[in-house]
């Protein structure tokens, strides 16, 4: 996989992960271009498209588009399920994940993705293994950090 993008229906980028060194300028251009292409597509259209020299696999979950760019030889369907598995992981971790969870906890979304995919290849497909790794990490910080944890006060959005 070359990169993964999460963006909203309004075209706001929520997460970007690049698996091949790319200049910032090019990244911005590619993101803009690809968002346009994907957002212009109608529901029920096929989840794959050719874009530049890459294949793009995307799927929409509620208000959020998950979009992966893969190379010519890569398998489209399994990439589609990779997206689904990532959504499941987010869902399990946050409990009924919504876009706001990803906005406010973007770092967690990154950590989960990192445990799941590394260097553009899937690292572990077992939901249990991935979540165990993340929860262990959470545990680590809670043990080490309890007094510093600020009280949560609701913020009116």
């Amino acid at each position, binding site marked *: 996989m070359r990169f993964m993008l999460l963006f909203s229906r309004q075209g706001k980028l929520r997460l970007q992960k690049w698996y091949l060194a790319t200049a910032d300028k090019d990244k911005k251009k590619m993101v803009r271009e690809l968002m346009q292409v994907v957002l212009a597509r109608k529901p029920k259209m096929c989840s794959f498209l050719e874009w530049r020299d890459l294949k793009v696999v995307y799927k929409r979950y509620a208000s959020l588009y998950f979009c992966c760019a893969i190379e010519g030889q890569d398998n489209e369907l*399994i990439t589609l399920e990779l997206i689904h598995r990532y959504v499941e992981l987010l869902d399990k971790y946050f409990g009924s994940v919504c876009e706001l969870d990803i906005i406010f906890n973007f770092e967690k979304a990154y950590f989960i993705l990192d445990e799941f995919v590394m260097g553009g290849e899937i690292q572990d497909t077992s939901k249990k293994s991935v979540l165990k790794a993340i929860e262990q990490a959470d545990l680590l910080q809670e043990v080490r950090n309890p007094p510093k944890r600020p009280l949560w006060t609701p913020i009116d959005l």
Partner: protein
Amino acid sequence: MPAVSKGDGMRGLAVFISDIRNCKSKEAEIKRINKELANIRSKFKGDKALDGYSKKKYVCKLLFIFLLGHDIDFGHMEAVNLLSSNRYTEKQIGYLFISVLVNSNSELIRLINNAIKNDLASRNPTFMGLALHCIANVGSREMAEAFAGEIPKILVAGDTMDSVKQSAALCLLRLYRTSPDLVPMGDWTSRVVHLLNDQHLGVVTAATSLITTLAQKNPEEFKTSVSLAVSRLSRIVTSASTDLQDYTYYFVPAPWLSVKLLRLLQCYPPPEDPAVRGRLTECLETILNKAQEPPKSKKVQHSNAKNAVLFEAISLIIHHDSEPNLLVRACNQLGQFLQHRETNLRYLALESMCTLASSEFSHEAVKTHIETVINALKTERDVSVRQRAVDLLYAMCDRSNAQQIVAEMLNYLETADYSIREEIVLKVAILAEKYAVDYTWYVDTILNLIRIAGDYVSEEVWYRVIQIVINRDDVQGYAAKTVFEALQAPACHENLVKVGGYILGEFGNLIAGDPRSSPLIQFNLLHSKFHLCSVPTRALLLSTYIKFVNLFPEIKTTIQDVLRSDSQLKNADVELQQRAVEYLRLSTIASTDILATVLEEMPPFPERESSILAKLKKKKGPGTVTDLEEIKKERSSDMNGSAEPASVNASAVSTPSPSADLLGLGAAPLANSAPPPSSSGSLLVDVFSDSPSAVAPLAPGSDDNFASPDLASSEVVSEEPADTVHDADELFHKFVCKNNGVLFENQLLQIGLKSEFRQNLGRMFIFYGNKTSTQFLNFTPTVICSDDLQSSLNLQTKPVDPTVDGGAQVQQVVNIECVSDFMEAPILNIQFRYGGTFQNLSVKLPITLNKFFQPTEMSSQDFFQRWKQLSNPKQEVQNIFKAKHPMDAEITKAKIIGFGSALLEEVDPNPANFVGAGIIHTKTTQIGCLLRLEPNLQAQMYRLTLRTSKEAVSQRLCELLSEQF
């Protein structure tokens, strides 16, 4: 508000994020961000040492700001500090910031590398994991230099935890992708292969990815992985759906791992060991069988995962291309998918069938689905699916169904999406040419293309129809008649006017006998379109008119009247005005004989690969961008020149005009038919004797023959790089297989070359000899690279002395570095002043891709194994061509060696064939190349096949080598 904030929430961060979300306008957002940036900056600069938590919070805010799309130019140091924190969360945020934001600031990289080193040595698996992730995320060369040696050790160490092993495997994969030269193969490789047997499926999954990537470049080293992969795969596909517990995904056992194993097997030919081969065939059959079983779940995830494995299995079957039974089953399976209700499956089936169509075993089976595919073209609602259908029709086309497929594509073109029209036009043009039994059908098809989608018919397409009509006299009359009829339409596309104008100018006489298309009617018809056309088309029509003067003397006065009109003679466009003036003059002064010679029918074009094919390749395949240059070259070297046959003589009469490139390019073809300079008498002939001909592009002392004062005083410019460049082609090709010799010679100047190449570097000495006894002044040779070429080829030259004495020789050194593979050749342009005239000529400098070959010796077995591995259709380029020289085996061998590859003896089962192998060295990569040349003495033909890992390289090498025999 999010329902859960797990772990260690940072309240300040949450507040900041909601502030940003509450901003009503972009300006407000920017204001809020700037305020925050100022705040963070002051905290970082302040005297008070920040505690780890604050540092983490601010770094995290910076990261958020960056992800919003703003530039961040500070905070890197604080992030690096976090790396050495003992608190996991601080370390983790530090690594995240580095992963997302690091640039190649070498100071910082050293510090980061230090922190990583510590974490790798910590033996704390979570810390090791973070460090490995960071290496994989950044993946820079500096990191590869620091850790590529270390990671294999972690990977194969007995006491490494599984999760760390997984990370290490993928981290190494990432480093290998960016810097393969820094990852040394060694003892560890065999132990990595054995990870395929690991208990932990997560480890196997990660290891399979790594092995696949490594095996693509080092197949020999990882050969043993084949049997292990087959047995692993076999265990998975035969397992019950619950056996693999958490690795079962919606009732499909380990789909990711299955796909990866099947992918790994595609790096190799079918297994040689019959037992392994049998087991693999069983696996593939099982997968195909499962596709027919009722689904275990109605969820789309179940069918997606199952079909992902199925499609990968089909890819492997196609890759092996050896089991007709499996191939046909695969084709039938895809046939079912063609009508599936899931758009995704229809899309993939069309895509996969495209590759299946190229296998001899399944081509016929694919063809049986033609009606379904045509139907898809008509009914699919998604343009990307229709695009696949077009691709498949193109792939399944052969002589038997070409007429039907071309008709359907033309049909579709009427309503096709704008985004894919140009490609369809190219495809139709190629198929029509390739499978034309009857050239009238071809002409009709192309004219239809212009009628339906004129705007999308590129120059290459209409140039090509002209080339073909000119080369085939059996179709010329038909073509003239057809264009004449097509031009009757009240509104016709400008491209049709171009084709019509050109063809009638050449062959209008073939239909002039019919009173309905008499010369005058033809002329009036064309001229009725004239005023609606753009300048280039009008220029072309003027050339048609002067050709008519020759073909139809009876309408000469009508044409002269048109040329003489103010709208022509005083046209604001200098090109049109010039043509009108010159053609009018030519029609008045020249005798019928001279007119007939100058305006003679075009000679046939040399046969060559269709330029539209090259264009399609460019559109479709990455890495073939340079094909564009081929098109340009082709365009300037023959199409433009020949599309303007009548204007040739004009260039001699003309003063240099800014649009000179439209003129005079035809000097080469005309030089043959021009009357010899000695037969002087008429003004025109005098002009010819002075004209800068291709044979003697430098025409010294030519000033006194021509009376016109403004020409005499102006410099005779013998420019037109294109014609000299074109002319030197033959000499250029001689240098493909040798390094020293004479590159160019005329009465004034001789250019000699000596060069040497090693790996991706080279040095070339250019010798310029003044053959006259007069000094050359302002002597300036310049090496010119096109933009494309500049990025692939680094050339450094030193200026030479601007004065070259009579009889003297000067030398120039060019240092060459090949950065990446390239197609075209640099141009050497030389300008100097000789006896008051300005000389300007250009030759191609023979720096060609094959110069960076290093020969590789290998055994027959290795050769054919590698040969099979490079069986992707994009990797192979083949050319069948007529021998241009006597077919002598010894000379052929010498040429292959001169070309740079190793000549492998006793490799090919047929001793008459030649095979070679070598590696192209560029700064960025090395590209393995295999070649095979099969002579056919009876037919006096050769078949040359090139296989390399890169399409553009195969293409270029094949072109270069084809010219040699």
